[in-house]
């Protein structure tokens, strides 16, 4: 009985090591580290520059959106419209620049598209109480259709006077790092900072934990919810703008089916679909693992038709892990 109350209160139960061992993100990183040598042993093509280049390229765009999606998923919501929003933002950027406007104006138009879509989703969900699934499913259809309307369903590959600058924005490199990777790292640092070190970030996590409690303690729950949908749509718009520069052309089918990869990436990285948990680093490693799986299937000579099965299976397995943990804490 020599332990005082103050000592008990000051005692820290969970150490760093234990916390890391419990995090899903850590085990995904382990999976990546284990998978890479194994895959390079199975296929000599795996650890080549070309493959790694392919992987980083595709995974970057998924990861950028997954960062935004992480905010939405933490609040307990979902955004199915990101693939279509990516397409719509690319198309508004492309059409604007094609009409002779500068890169700056084009990028602003693209980002504004993201903000507008996010506001629409967010207001319907937060203020009118629509289920996120329904609203964003509707937007999935609306945004892609609008992209077709804007472009008259043509392929845009002429971007006016700033054509070369747009190609550099998406395809060039800064300080020796490919630009999309550079943007991804900056956005991931920003996301991590906001979630951990700002009031807004805490409020996002609190809403996912107990929305009713968050309301009672005076958190502006509706405003925060609108903000997370705007963040998610803007992330999709950023990915769209960068991808346009990378590809050098825009068609109305880019980003099709991407929502599933993005959600899978966030969930594999430890974001909880019931809300309350998720990290920036998780979104990145989730995207990376997903892309490595996808790419290695091809290298291992497995028919591409199987890809969807693996991605879908990965989502279900990630959620299964979450369920097991929930059941364990209940006991």
């Amino acid at each position, binding site marked *: 009985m020599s332990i005082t*109350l*103050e000592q*008990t*209160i*000051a*005692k*820290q*139960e*969970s150490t760093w090591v234990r916390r890391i061992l419990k995090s899903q993100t850590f085990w995904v990183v382990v999976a990546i580290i284990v998978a890479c040598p194994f895959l390079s042993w199975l296929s000599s093509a795996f650890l080549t520059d070309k493959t790694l280049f392919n992987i980083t390229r595709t995974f970057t765009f998924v990861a950028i959106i997954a960062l935004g999606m992480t905010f939405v998923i933490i609040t307990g919501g979902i955004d199915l419209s990101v693939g279509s929003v990516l397409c719509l933002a690319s198309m508004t950027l492309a059409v604007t620049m094609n009409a002779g406007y500068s890169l700056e104006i084009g990028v602003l138009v693209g980002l504004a598209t993201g903000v507008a879509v996010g506001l629409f989703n967010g207001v319907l969900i937060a203020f009118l109480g629509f289920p996120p699934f329904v609203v964003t499913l509707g937007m999935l259809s609306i945004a892609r259709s609008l992209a077709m309307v804007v472009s008259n369903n043509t392929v845009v590959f002429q971007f006016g006077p700033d054509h070369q600058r747009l190609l550099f924005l998406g395809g060039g490199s800064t300080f020796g790092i490919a630009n999309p990777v550079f943007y991804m790292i900056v956005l991931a640092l920003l996301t991590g900072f906001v979630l*951990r*070190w*700002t*009031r807004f970030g*805490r*409020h996002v*996590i*609190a809403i*996912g*934990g*107990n929305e*009713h*409690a*968050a309301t*009672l*303690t*005076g*958190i502006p729950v509706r405003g925060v919810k609108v903000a997370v949908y705007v963040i998610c749509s803007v992330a999709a718009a950023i990915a769209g703008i960068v991808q346009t520069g990378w590809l050098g052309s825009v068609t109305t089918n880019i980003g099709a089916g991407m929502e599933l990869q993005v959600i899978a990436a966030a969930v594999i990285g430890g974001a909880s679909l019931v809300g*309350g*948990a998720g990290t920036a680093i998780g979104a990145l490693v989730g995207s990376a693992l997903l892309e490595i799986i996808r790419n290695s299937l091809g290298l291992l000579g497995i028919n591409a038709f199987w890809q969807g099965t693996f991605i879908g299976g990965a989502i279900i397995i990630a959620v299964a892990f979450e369920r097991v943990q929930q059941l364990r*804490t209940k006991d």
Partner: protein
Amino acid sequence: MPVLELRNISKHFGAIQAVNDVSLTIEPGEVVGLMGDNGAGKSTLVKMIAGNFNPTSGQILIDGQEVSLSHPVDARRNGVEIVYQDLALCNNLTAAENVFLGRELRRGVGPLSILDYNGMYKRAGELFADLKSETRPRDLIKQMSGGQRQAVAIARTMLSKAKVVLMDEPTAAISVRQVAEVLNHIKHLRDQGVAIVLISHRMPDVFTIGDRVIVLRRGRKVADKRIKDSSPEEVTGLITGAIEQV
């Protein structure tokens, strides 16, 4: 001077008279048990003090000043805090984060300021020590016992130097063993000069820590007695209507 005074408070919902002409006063450092059967008007009365409902007629005075509490934020600004029955805690956050939820501490300047976790952990630890509760600020709520969760919810009210704390059935959802712990928290809160309104169904709670008991029946105040002048039997009679009024 009473810290909280209600003068002839009534509340109608259409034709239903939920609270009818209730007056009461509460002094600082006093624990008042508010009792009554379901539908007696306890929650309606408390919701008016908490700023959830506007009274149809009557006045609410805090520290002798008439106040208009038309929103929970107004109530909080006037020093009225509530501990909800479900405690309103986020399971996925730590004890300290819950204490400071919505009023997070920050350090730095202006837009560059960031959350001050060390400050929050330290202050939350001090509050738990004041409550004599073995609650660790860095533990997640989901790992905690019912008594510790109550301590977190009560610590939240201490953060703002509340004058009046309304507690809605604080012992309803916890094990018998932890009831004593929670009642102790309430005592420590009272010792700091806070007036406490304890809404409870449990006669032993009110008779253990209450100074006074107020009984409502069908929206009317039927008793307002010092605990030492009353008995559980009398209060039961008042709640059920076996005793008309005292």
